[in-house]
């Protein structure tokens, strides 16, 4: 079981690097989609055989929503906003990947420093979770397009969710549903906003959304 968990975590880290290094928007959306699916499988795998109906159902729903539904919405937003399909970052792709490597090192260090009350199934679990969140933050900060900022937000949420799975949180059903619903509606609203931005501005570059500033006399 720990082999399966390790393999999933390695793939999770690789999708993080894929998100950082891809130049095409479609590839970035697919990377986040794979992350969502992997997390669904991970949440089932860490239960280590003690499967319950809720324990399988919610990761499954979460995997389907984050892995299929949300990416479908984002693809639609991308097509309808008619934005150019290239990610236009502020820092080069090489620098992004190196930033990701630094983030991985920091996550590994943090994972060693933080002593969890119970031993997680794999020593890579907490570092992978922190890494995914850090990748999300790097993407939000270093990318120009509104769509990639949404992808960064999704990666951040994925990382937090992975941390929850790492510490084997038994969140009540209502809360899990609530969190999932929040993320879903959040991305839905953001997708609509991106559509409006694309229609209003003819682009979805957020660094050109700069008309609201403070002008001191």
């Amino acid at each position: 079981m720990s082999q399966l968990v390790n393999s999933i975590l390695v793939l999770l880290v690789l999708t993080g690097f894929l998100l950082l290094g891809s130049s095409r928007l479609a590839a970035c959306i697919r990377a986040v989609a794979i992350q969502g699916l992997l997390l669904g499988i991970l949440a089932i795998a860490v239960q280590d055989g003690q499967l319950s109906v809720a324990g399988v159902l919610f990761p499954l729903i979460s995997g389907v929503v984050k892995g299929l539904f949300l990416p479908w919405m984002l693809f639609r937003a991308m097509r309808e906003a008619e934005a150019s399909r290239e990610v236009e970052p502020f820092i080069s792709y090489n620098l992004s990947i190196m930033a990701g490597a630094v983030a991985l090192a920091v996550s590994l260090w943090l994972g060693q420093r933080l002593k969890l009350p119970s031993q997680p199934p794999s020593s890579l679990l907490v570092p992978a979770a922190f890494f995914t969140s850090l990748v999300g933050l790097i993407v939000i900060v270093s990318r120009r397009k509104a769509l990639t900022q949404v992808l960064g937000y999704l990666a951040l949420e994925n990382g937090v969710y992975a941390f929850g799975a790492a510490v084997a949180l038994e969140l009540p059903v209502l809360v899990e549903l609530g969190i999932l619903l929040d993320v879903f509606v959040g991305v839905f609203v953001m997708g609509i906003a991106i559509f409006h931005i694309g229609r209003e501005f003819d682009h979805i570059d957020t660094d050109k959304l700069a008309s609201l500033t403070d002008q001191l006399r």
Partner: protein
Amino acid sequence: MMVALLVLIPACAGSVAFFVESDRFRRVLLLSAATAQAALSLATWVVQPTPALGGWLAEDALGRLFETLTSLLFLAASFYAVAYLREERSQSHADFEEGFLFSNAREASFTGCLLFFLAAMTLVTVSQQLALLWVAVEATTLASAPLIYFHRHHRSLEATWKYLLICSVGIALALLGIFFLAVAATKPDGSTIPLVVQELSSRAQQLNVPWFKAAFVLLLVGYGTKMGLAPFHTWLPDAHSEAPSVASALLSGALLNCAFLGILRTQEICVAGGLADFSGRLLLVFGLLSMAVAAVFITGQTDYKRMLAYSSVEHMGILAVGIGLGGTAVFGAMLHVINHSLTKAMLFMVAGNLLAVYRTKNATDVAGALSVLPASGLLWVLGVFAITGSPPFGPFLSEFAILKAALDQGQAFVAIVYLGLLAIIFAAMAAPALAMAQGTPRENVVAPAARSLALSAVPAILGVGVVMMGIYIPAVLTRALREAARFLG
């Protein structure tokens, strides 16, 4: 049952409002839902509601205070909103600053989102389970984003996008904080303390301290983003100035309080666990920083709605300072929550009236408000004096209480910086506000023919409330504030 109704009434009304075609029926629905909600809130002061959902939804003293404030503010805002929407219907929409034509969002979706917004805020106030509280705070972000995008043009879209993204990222960090808290609540033998405020407070000594401290920092950053504490406040001036005035009033007056409530719940647990020094110091730093940032950006600010938004940042800073100081300052902070909400809501509504008549957001272009719009002009002047802390208005008493507590505790540096920043903000806000009210208006400003009475009456009622709070605080309110402040140090 009552507690569940408090959330369900606006939620159901909101779902219905989306599909109602008739404007008149929808506005009646809004008003009746708001009135029912306000009546139910006041009823909870007489009859203590029973907890629901196994203790997850319950009204303690703190929640009741915030919930009633939110409901009453929403009631006032809904009357103003109905009048505002009627005015918006009859006008053509040309942008004041750049002159292009724009359209408004569907009134049905605006009304529906308003009611969902109320439902989400009520859920925040009655949640005792911290993860459920998180879900509710995120829900308020999502329900209020369409409100900002009522006037469909590029500036409000930009403000909406910034609001959505920055608040969602902050809230995601708060979720990590909740997970850290869950780890802190796991005892060495593997059993967990449920994430209910009551349980965590009573067993606060058993919490794992490093994890709890990390959780507090993350929750402060996350909910602080939503609350508007510097340096996470960057979405606030844009969102609050581009939203229609009724939405700004609710955002500043009610939503910031709900985010503050998230921090307060965590502070309750900190105090119970003996970590009040640690959390207090952090709150003080962020509070003073917020006040300083607000002071810098209010000085020389020409956009009067942005000025009000930065004033909200300042007051959130004051609240953080109050809670950070602890002791009697907490009572002052609770009082300040009420005073700030009433005054800021009134100010935003009055600003809306000024904007509608003067057609400009630039404070230097507005003059002679007292002659063109007597009621709104007077309320504007009084409101600005109130919000900057002059007697005999409410905010003076609460800000003074916090200052006195700082001096009593011997925190001379905090008191001096606090007082200095308040003075700077007073000077920076009062001067333009007075200039706006006095003088002669320009030629093309026409005194409005027949604007709805509610547009002036509602802020006037709130203004009366602010004056009352400055002169006399009813004993029942004092008792309630003391109850609310009890667990916060």
